């Protein structure tokens, strides 16, 4: 009964109870019943097809590591298998009618997500099988596919697909280098702030269709970067991101993460010049640091005033000896937000979270700390505006 409709032109793959249990496990880290169900269908299909292909091409692999997959399935349907440089996009569905292959736009219009081949896959977990019944190329999807603006998918009718997986395999062996892709428009580059804003907005689990909530190019630009996708996923799942520790001694080797930018890319020249000046110190003897880096902190709209603020957190450091470091910490507005926001408060905390310094713009004109510490010692900076607080943690 199980596979009585088997056809040698299709791949009919059995799902063992172990495979099902594995897929259930893989799906549980998604946030809602529908995303868990999507992850489950994708995991079932991906594992089964990978096993089938590996029987002949042991080097076949999934595009993303297992740990990165829930972040994709949280928001979009589809999975990728890599055969060398060739990418197969598997599109699972529970539809019984084999009328079309419907591919989410993410897999078609994002330059680094494009596939060479797209495989139509029906998943039937309650009967214990998946069947791959047809395929097409990126070229065909782009040139013949119907675009649905409401669901943001490209669809190709069954008549336009190749309903024969023997042909797929023979094509792979005989003309593996035949052109399969069409060039697509590049996606915009998002700034870190744009990405953060999108993640905050779309990370709200109440948004039912995050992939449809903002224009496609913005969405795709966000989704196709792994760290942002991961952040979005974690936010939707309500996972508190462990604050990454900023290791300042790595700065001495020139290793900076992207958010810590060169000072002049963020601050105005006069801000740079006056950064370390304090009312007490004259221009001549204001301290200078060997390394200066700045990070833009975004304090989202204040619930009371409705205004958002961008502030720059500037860190300066100079090694005094092998074990000792001289440090400066300065907070100032970013470029256009020239007027300093009155209600900003900054606290400096030691490694145990005990306050060792405190400043607010309402009291002092500038917010600045200068201190020294041992290599390996930790401290953190807490910036508060209204009801929002951001914390950055460091290790010297």
């Amino acid at each position, binding site marked *: *009964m*199980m*596979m*009585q*409709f*088997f*056809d*040698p*032109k*299709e*791949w*009919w*793959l*059995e799902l063992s109870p172990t495979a*099902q249990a594995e*897929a*259930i496990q893989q*799906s*549980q880290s998604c946030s809602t*019943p*529908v995303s868990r*169900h999507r*992850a*489950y269908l994708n995991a079932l299909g991906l594992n089964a097809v990978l096993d089938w292909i590996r*029987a002949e091409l042991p080097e076949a692999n999934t595009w993303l590591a297992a740990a990165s997959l829930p972040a994709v399935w949280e928001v979009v349907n589809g999975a990728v298998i890599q055969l060398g440089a060739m990418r197969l996009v598997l599109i699972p*569905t*529970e*539809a*019984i*009618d*084999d*009328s*079309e292959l*419907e591919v989410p736009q993410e897999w078609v219009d994002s330059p680094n997500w494009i596939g060479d081949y797209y495989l139509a896959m029906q998943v039937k*977990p*309650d009967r214990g099988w998946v069947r791959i019944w047809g395929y097409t190329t990126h070229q065909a999807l782009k040139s013949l596919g119907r675009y*649905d603006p*409401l*669901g943001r*998918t490209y*669809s190709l*009718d069954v*008549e336009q697909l*190749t309903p*024969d*997986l*023997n*042909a797929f*395999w*023979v*094509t792979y062996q*005989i*003309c593996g280098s*035949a052109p*399969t892709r069409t060039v697509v428009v590049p996606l915009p580059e998002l700034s870190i702030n744009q990405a953060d804003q999108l993640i905050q907005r779309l990370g709200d689990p*109440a948004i*039912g*269709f995050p992939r*449809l*909530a903002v224009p496609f190019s913005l969405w795709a630009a966000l989704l196709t970067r792994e760290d942002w996708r991961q952040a979005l996923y974690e936010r939707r799942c309500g996972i508190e991101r462990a604050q990454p520790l900023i290791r300042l001694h790595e700065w001495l080797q020139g290793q900076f993460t992207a958010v810590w930018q060169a000072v002049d890319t963020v601050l105005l020249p006069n801000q740079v010049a006056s950064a370390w000046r304090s009312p007490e110190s004259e221009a001549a003897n204001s301290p200078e640091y060997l390394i200066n880096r700045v990070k833009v902190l975004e304090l989202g709209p204040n619930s009371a005033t409705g205004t958002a603020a961008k502030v720059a957190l500037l860190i300066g450091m100079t090694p005094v000896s092998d074990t000792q470091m001289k440090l400066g910490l300065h907070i100032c507005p970013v470029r256009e937000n020239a007027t300093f926001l009155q209600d900003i408060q900054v606290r400096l905390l030691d490694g145990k979270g005990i306050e060792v310094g405190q400043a607010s713009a309402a009291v002092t004109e500038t917010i600045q700390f200068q201190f020294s510490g041992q290599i390996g010692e930790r401290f953190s900076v807490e910036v508060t505006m209204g009801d929002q607080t951001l914390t950055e943690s460091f290790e010297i």
Partner: protein
Amino acid sequence: MHTRQEIIELFSTFLQFETDGLSHWVTDLRLRRNMHRCVEDYVQRVSMATRDRRSLEQFWALHWHHCWQAKTHPLAEGHLSAYLQESCYWAAQQILKQFTSVQFGVSDYCQIGMAEIRTILRGFKPDRGASLKTFANIAFPKLLKDQLRQRQEVNLCSSLGLLRRISKKRFLEALRQTGLSSAAIAQYQLAWMCFNTLYVPIQTGKHQLPTVDQSLWIAITDLYNTECPNQLGATGMACTPAIMEQWLNQSAAWVRAYLYPPVESLNLPKAGIESGSERQDDLPDPLQESLLTEWVMWEDNQARQVQWAQIRGVIVTALEQLDAQSQEVLRCYYQQGLTQQQIMQQLQMSQATVSRRLTKAREALLLALVQWSQLPLNSSTTPNLIKEMSAALEEWLVVHYGVPAPDFGRQTEVQEQG
């Protein structure tokens, strides 16, 4: 019941089923008159003596298919429906033999098959070399199997469950069929998207769906109303749980009625005995001179026959190179028409072995065929060519293994292939 022999009969009579299961041929008079006229016209232009019945049959099949494609003759579909009666009947018998179904009998399958005649006619490519009948002998069983598979599923689905198992294309088609405006269809589509987001198994890996109650309708409605301004803009209006329930139940009913109507109510393109008044004069010229010339040339084409012989040779050689077990699996599937289950029992193999063997055996044949096609000119193979070859391989395999004649009871017809 007798088997059909005469050309005019082949293109103008239909199988009629009686309640006791017996069947006989009924003539559609309009088709018969038209066929009669066309044959006379043909005889005047082409020397009849040089043509045997089989080649004549081929000619008329190609001729009506050509007219059907070009939409130049209103009766073309009727003639072809009449012509493919045996193919469909044979497929129905095959399916009945392979799958036990309390639901359908031979006549039901014949109805399902003939209702999809346009799918068959669209799929037929005369250039591949196989006859329309050979093609139909492959396409009908596939079509009936698909229908049976889907209808079995559908019968197990609740009405809302069916909405989760339908492609977007079919969902939208069912709605369009009702004459809804495009703005209304967009609302239904969004409602359906919201439904699909919330009506999913409560526990992953289990199949139990949420209880259909007021709280479900409220949840779907809330999501709909949140998404509506963003997705539908000015055309979307807020919905209430009561309306949502009505929309989705209505959609489910439409989908079922459109896609899987009761077999008795299938709308057959051609089944009438006599249709309307006799306005034969307005029929177009039955024969096109150019097609006639083309046909004569086509039929005399020696090169084509040589190529066919070569292809058969390639397939036979490739078959011989397969291991014995693979050959046996292919024979079971193509010649005896066994299901995977039956092959498993007959050859004492596991399911996984049967499916891999069959798939890989057919793949080896396709590979051999494609490699052979590259030989003469060392021509480069394109994915499209492989796709065409694969369709052709299926036709060649059926020719190679032969198709048993449909069993009409006492008499059997010797059916010629290729």
